[in-house]
Every structure is written in structure tokens, then in C-alpha cells.
């Protein structure tokens, strides 16, 4: 191959064609990170297969030569799952972006892994259907990436996360073998589909996905509530759930987050001086929706709400959601860098956890914006920092870890939907014992015996002699 001494480039080009391989360092630079920018590493090459056969052939070749590799979708992941740490070959799935099949009668859609999340809903909306998991990055993220990370989203409170919507997968195993998991109807035996979903690209590369699609709800209403005390908003969240309502979404933003979104591209015009706002949506059959809305407004009033309103039309509802869904990225307007955390806590502990986060922010001197799926206790504290200031990146990472410790200590966990990736590897120890981690790495070994596929992700670096031995004997 012209322009490189790496013979691998020619070998990969023979499989996928020379226009589907990147290898010049300048072209690879943009692949040194995904949306988690704190850790970076250069890949050896990037390949762009277009078919399952090409993925399998590339993987088989790399496996044979014991060359490490990893899959990448749109690169919108927030935990660094697609960042090469050991000069891996990146297998980019963005050119596998077809919608293969839609079966409205059986409520099924089949997509290639590079198909963008929101495009699925757009493609079936004229038939009255949609795809429920709606991560905030759904404008750009791929369904393949969603499967790898078991992505969530604002509406997962009622509808569940990606794993609740995946019916079948075609997977290229790390040795190049192609297998099919699940399918309709559900198969007896171990739930390998569940194991593969959320495995963060460490067990196989997904090349085809069968998902469940849902009928659009008959009715949908959205409430926006402003509070001058975070505690009141937190109690309102618990009260709504306690009242027996299961909102489709129950979102919260605090002062700093509101400041960010109001500076961004989709401001709503929230009044200044708010401590918190709640965005609450209920949907379903039309009967009963109004009663639920009345109940929700009543709860907010009992919790001293400053102002509470119901969206008057689809346009207003859309503006509220655009404001919320672009919250992370809008932080760019008030800070050059941010680190987003993904802790989960029992809903009832919200006020005390928020108080702890505030203390961590004050002690460290770094501002923290809180945006979260309050309904299911999934917090997204956004730690604002400036990577150009010496030491501030490390400080942000420490602060993030401290926040996760708080979550774990109240009986929560370290990730709700963003995955562990590189970012939270060490924090796995907050929630898993050494034995539990070892048990999981043994499962990985069954699928990924030489740990060539996305090595060094998801689990902490080996700390015990036994684990090191396992890995050495595998290599």
C-alpha cells in the first residue's frame, strides 16, 4: 500500500477495498477519542466494512494475526468505549447504515448497526410507529452503539432501556465466526441476547439488530414545573411516583444546567434564579391522561412550585424537549470542557445526594451542573472544567469519581446508561467485589479468549495475581 510501511493496510484493503481503509496519522487523529475526550489514543488503522461478511473477514484476519481491534459507531459514547488504548484497528460501522426490514404487523424492525437511532422513528412515523429508546444523542448515535452500551434515554422510565427492545442480533465473534442470537419468538436457554446487549463491545461486534417498534401513544401531555428549592423538586419527583403514576419521562435540571441550556441553541426562556425545573411527560390511551396531569400539577403545588404549566401544543412540547435533550452539549456555551457522570441512586435519597454533590463542587472549586432522569434516579452531574488549565482535567476526573462514590454509598451504582468504558473502570470496585469482577472476566474469556476485542475496557486493571494469570495464559 502506497504511503505506509504497515503491511496490514494492504491486507485490510484486499478485504474491504482501499477506499475503506484509513491509515495516515493525520486521518486517524480524529479517531483518537469519542465523545469522552479525557483519554485519547491513536488507532493503527480504521476500516469501513459494508457487509457482515466484510466485518467477519476483517475480524478473522486480525484474530489470526493476534492484532487488537474494536468497533465504533458514531463515536457519541460518553465513557470512552470506542477509544483505542493499545493501537487497535478500529472497525467503523457507519457505512452499514441500512434499514433492512420493517414489519408493522409484528412490530419489528431490522437495522444495520450504523443506522442512526432517530432515523428509525422518522422512517416509521408515517405508519404510526416509533422506536422507544431515546438517548439525548439520538440525532446522531447509532443503534449498534446503543446495543453495545445498552443505551437509555429520557423515556426509559416507562418504556425501559435498549435491552428491553432488542429482539435479535447477528454478531461477529472475536474469532470471525458469525452467530445469531434471539429472534422472534424468544428462544429457550440462556439469555445470551441480554448478555451481549450492554457488553460494551467486548464480546462481539453486532452486525444486524432486530428491534421492537411501538405504536405511537394515543395521547401525550407534558408539564414544565419551576422550583426555587431543589429539595421541593426532589420531593415532588418521589410524590409523583408514590401517587401511582408512571410518567413516560420525569426529568430534572438545576441552576447551572438551566444557565447552560438557556445560552445554547434551543433556549426556552426559563426565568432566572430557578433552583430546579422538572419536565414531566405522561402518555398512553387518551382516557385518564388529564386526571394524571391534574394529579401531577397538584403534587407540584403541594411542594411549593413557583410556576407549573402544561405544553399547549406539539411545537411548545418540542421546544421543551430540544432544550432538555441538548443540555450536555449546550454546556459548551458556559465551559470549554465537561465530564458527565452517570450515577444511579434510589429516588428517595435524591436531596441528600444533591447536597453531597454540591459540597464536592464547593470543595473542588469546579462547577457542577445537574441534568438527570429523576424518575429512575439516574443522575448526570456535568463537571465543568477547562482542560487548558494545568491540573484541572485530573481534578475533574477525581471529582467525578467522588460523585460516583456518593452514589454507590447510598445503595446506588456507577452507571445507568453511559457504560463503564475507560472512564469508570476503577469505580467498578465501588460496586463489585474482586470475585464478581473475576467472574465477569471469565465470561468475557469464553467469547473473547485472547482479549483482542476492545481490551482494557469495562473492568479495572487486574489487581490480583489470579486474574493476571488468567490473562497471561490466554494471550
Amino acid at each position: 500500500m502506497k504511503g505506509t510501511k504497515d503491511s496490514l493496510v494492504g491486507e485490510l484493503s484486499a478485504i474491504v477495498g482501499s477506499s475503506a481503509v484509513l491509515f495516515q496519522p493525520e486521518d486517524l487523529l480524529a479517531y483518537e477519542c469519542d465523545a469522552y475526550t479525557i483519554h485519547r489514543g491513536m488507532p493503527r488503522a480504521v476500516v469501513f466494512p459494508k457487509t457482515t461478511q466484510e466485518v467477519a473477514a476483517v475480524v478473522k484476519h486480525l484474530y489470526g494475526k493476534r492484532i487488537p481491534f474494536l468497533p465504533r459507531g458514531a463515536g457519541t459514547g460518553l465513557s470512552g468505549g470506542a477509544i483505542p488504548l493499545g493501537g487497535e484497528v478500529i472497525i467503523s460501522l457507519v457505512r452499514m447504515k441500512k434499514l433492512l426490514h420493517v414489519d408493522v404487523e409484528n412490530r419489528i424492525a431490522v437495522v444495520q448497526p450504523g443506522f442512526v437511532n432517530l432515523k428509525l422513528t422518522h422512517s416509521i412515523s408515517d405508519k404510526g410507529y416509533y422506536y422507544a429508546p431515546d438517548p439525548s444523542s439520538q440525532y446522531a448515535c447509532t443503534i449498534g452503539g446503543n446495543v453495545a452500551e445498552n443505551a437509555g434515554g429520557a423515556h426509559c422510565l416507562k418504556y425501559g432501556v435498549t435491552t428491553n427492545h432488542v429482539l435479535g442480533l447477528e454478531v461477529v465473534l472475536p474469532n470471525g465466526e458469525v452467530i445469531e442470537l434471539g429472534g422472534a419468538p424468544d428462544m429457550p436457554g440462556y439469555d445470551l441476547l441480554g448478555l451481549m446487549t450492554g457488553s460494551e463491545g467486548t464480546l462481539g461486534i453486532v452486525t444486524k439488530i432486530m428491534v421492537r417498534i411501538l405504536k405511537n401513544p394515543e395521547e401525550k401531555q407534558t408539564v414544565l414545573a419551576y422550583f426555587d428549592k431543589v429539595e421541593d423538586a426532589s420531593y415532588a419527583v418521589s410524590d409523583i411516583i408514590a401517587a401511582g403514576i408512571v410518567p413516560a419521562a420525569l426529568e430534572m435540571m438545576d441552576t447551572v444546567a438551566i444557565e447552560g441550556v438557556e445560552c445554547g441553541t434551543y433556549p426556552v426562556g426559563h426565568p432566572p434564579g430557578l433552583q430546579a425545573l422538572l419536565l414531566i411527560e405522561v402518555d398512553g390511551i387518551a382516557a385518564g391522561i388529564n386526571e394524571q396531569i391534574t394529579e401531577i400539577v397538584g403534587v407540584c403545588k403541594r411542594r411549593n412550585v413557583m410556576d407549573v404549566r402544561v405544553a399547549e401544543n406539539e411545537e411548545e412540547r418540542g421546544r421543551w424537549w430540544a432544550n432538555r435533550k441538548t443540555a450536555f452539549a449546550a454546556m459548551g456555551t458556559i465551559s470549554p470542557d465537561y465530564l458527565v457522570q452517570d450515577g444511579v441512586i434510589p429516588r428517595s435519597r435524591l436531596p441528600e445526594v444533591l447536597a453531597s454533590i454540591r459540597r464536592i463542587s464547593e470543595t473542588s472549586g469546579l462547577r457542577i451542573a445537574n441534568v438527570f432522569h429523576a424518575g429512575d434516579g439516574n443522575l448526570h452531574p456535568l463537571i465543568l472544567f477547562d482542560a487548558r488549565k494545568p491540573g484541572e482535567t485530573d481534578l475533574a476526573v477525581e471529582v467525578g469519581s467522588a460523585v460516583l462514590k456518593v452514589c454507590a454509598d447510598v445503595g446506588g451504582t456507577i452507571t445507568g446508561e453511559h457504560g463503564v468504558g475507560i472512564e469508570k473502570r476503577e469505580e467498578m470496585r465501588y460496586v463489585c467485589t474482586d470475585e464478581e469482577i473475576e467472574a465477569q472476566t471469565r465470561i468475557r474469556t469464553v467469547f473473547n479468549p485472547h482479549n483482542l476485542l476492545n481490551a482494557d475496557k469495562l473492568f479495572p486493571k487486574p489487581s490480583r495475581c489470579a486474574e493476571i494469570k488468567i490473562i497471561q495464559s490466554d494471550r
Partner: protein
Amino acid sequence: MNQSGIRMVKPHTDESTLVHMSATDEDKFAACVHCGMCLESCPTYDELGHEHQSPRGRVHLMKAVAQGKMAISEAFADPVFTCLDCRACETACPSGVQVGTLIEEARGQIRETLPLTGWKKTISRTFLRKLFPYPARLQVLGKALKVYQRSGLQTFARKTGLVNLAPQHLRDMEAIMPMVTEPTLTKYPHGIPANGKVKMQVALFTGCIMDVMFSDINEATIRVLTRNGYEVEMPQGQRCCGALHVHAGDREEGRRLARQNIDAFLEADPDKVIVNAAGCGCALKEYPELLREDQEYRERAKQFAAKVEDVSKFLHDYGYRKPQGKLNARVTYHDACHLAHGQGVRREPRELLESIPGLQIIPLPDADRCCGSAGIYNLTNPGMAGKILDKKMENMPAEAELISMGNPGCMLQIAMGVAKCGRNQQVVHTVQLLDWSYQKEGRYVPAEEV
């Protein structure tokens, strides 16, 4: 934690490439948090799937260059010049990163470091420095084209196959070249009075190519404006807006033209400066950015830019009489990038069309997706421009008889698409439809419609 990670690109040590007159603005790229929300909006990313051919990737490389991690090389120039500068990513970006301006700054930086050589330099200099800035020379070219079209030479060239000696994309372009008419700037040196009571005084920005190739659109614009009580001035000192220069990285010539236009229009002191070419309008509105380091012109640029308005938005905001002439046709509307993404004008032209009796509007899927024209992109990157045009034409509803838009570059490009697909659709400027409707009512207006 190791912040820099593993790098294969050696830190760039040559200080000279780090300091540039037009280095990209750190505050502008620092606003990018690398979220990737822009990816799907980018036509080149959609085609190639390469991260470095996406808005986020391009900004990433600009950061790398500014931090000295990457040299200004062909590998940097390629993604920066493959960008269409369509600004769709700016609409998508939650943080308001000004990718278009960053791209233009990076192009300036590249052309300072890696000046064009050989035939590329000759062609670029001939067009950008020796032709576009001079209305008289453009008119000579226009006259030559007129001779070519009317003397039978065009027919001769087409019949004999002489035209086939040109590269395919130039041949495609020749096939749809509009008939050249007399430029309005010289035709109306003293402006055009309003019909009836004068509501406002406006100045028309006639554009360079626009006034040679599409002077009929300028004529239509003048008729619509004067008919609605707007007196139209034609400042004679005006020149090309400089958008093509800034897009090509020739910021110096861009600034020179900007100063000249600012002088010409502020001297005429109209209430508004009306533009009917989205690309020009966007460039004129961005003069304050282009001249932000020019002590003398910085404030004047702001004063000027505040007056600039696209014709459709101007009519919508300041009022126009609803036309009565019935146009029995089906029309679809294409959002020019520099109108929708660049100036946020989307609703107004559609409302103008809706106000025309008899006109049936057919929605165009992905209406605000670039058509591939992008200034002279279809000449410099014909391959990519062609693919993007194909996508536009796939979406183009076949039942539409008219395709309306607000930018001459898009008009040429989409006319080429129509010709390539062998369709029988007419490409028109939005203001032309309004003009036709007015003209039709002049002859015969049925009583029930008045």
C-alpha cells in the same frame, strides 16, 4: 491520568505555522465539546462516514493545529476544503459552534501557509482577483456568453460535439446556463422610484454573477419592491460580496471587497440593504466577523450588517400586498443553506409562496439539505457535489412543476440536476413567483378574487 494519551503525530515544532494572521479563533473552537450531535447534519460525513470529514472532526483537527499537534498540510487542507460550508452543523449544534466561520478562517490559514501553485493558482487568481471584483469585466464575459448563446455558436458547439471536449461537470453546467440579459446595476444607475407612496428607501445588492447570469431575477426583485412602495437605490460603488473569496481562503481580497461595499452602501444610507442571493446575504451579514480586527471598519461593518436583509424576510417583516394573480401550478421549496442555516430564514419564503393564489405547495423531504452547489464547490469538488445533488434529486417530488429557492448557485445546481434526471421542472427564484403573480393580475383579475 494521562491527558494526552498515545500519539503518533509528532508535536509540530515549526513555530512559523502556529502563528497566523488568520489563525482559527480559540474561543470559537473551545465551544465544541465533541458531542457529535452535528454528524448526521453533515452531507460529506453522510457520503464518506469519515470522522475527519465531519464538523466535529474538522474542528478537532483545527484544535490539533492550534495546539501544534498537527502540521498545516494537505492532510489538513483536504477535510477543510471538502467541507461545503453549508452550515447545517450550526443548526444542529447545541453549543452554537460557528463551524462555518472556523472553516473560513482555517482556509485562510491554509492558503497563507500552502499557497496555490501552477494552474490552480492561475485559475483561482483569474477568477477571484481579476474577474469577480470587477463588474465591467464580468459584463464583458456576460456579453461574450450572450454572443455564444444567440449567434448560434451554442447550437453549433452542441451539435458538433465541440462542447463534449469540456469535462462532464462543465458540460452539465453549459447545458443549463441561463440566457444572459442586461445587468441591472448599469441599466438603472439612478435607482428606481417606488410606485405610489414611498414606504421606505432600500438599496439593492445586485451581486456579481447574479447580475450577469440572473439579471431577470434582479428585475423581478426591483418590480416587487417598487410595486410595494419601496424606493430602490442602486449604489454604483458596490462590488462582489467576497463570499467566494472567503470560502476559498482569500480573506485579504474578501476584506478589500467588504470595505468597498460598506463604503458604497453606507454612503447611499438606505433604510435596508436588500439581497436576493442567500450566499451573498450571509457573507454581507458576516462582514463584522471578517473585519473584526480592522480598527477602522469594525464599527462600520456592524452598522452595515444591521441593514442587510434577505428579500423574502424583508417583504415578510415590512409588508407586501398579497398578490391576486393566480398561478395554477405545483411548487416545492428548497432551503438554500445560507438562507436556512446561515440566516435562519425558513418560514418567510414559504409564507410568500402560500400567499400566491393557485399555487399548490408540495413538501420537499430534507428541504434544508445542501444541493452541492456551495459557491463554486460544484466546480472545485465536482465528484462530491454530484453525489450530493443526486440525493437532492431523489427527494425532489416529481409532481412539482416548479422548484423555488432563494439562491442563484442552488438554482444552477438544481437546474443541472433536473436536466440530468431528464425531468421537465422549472427552477425559479421565490421572488419571481411573486412577481409573476403580480404581473398576471395586471392583465386580468377575476372579480371574485379581488
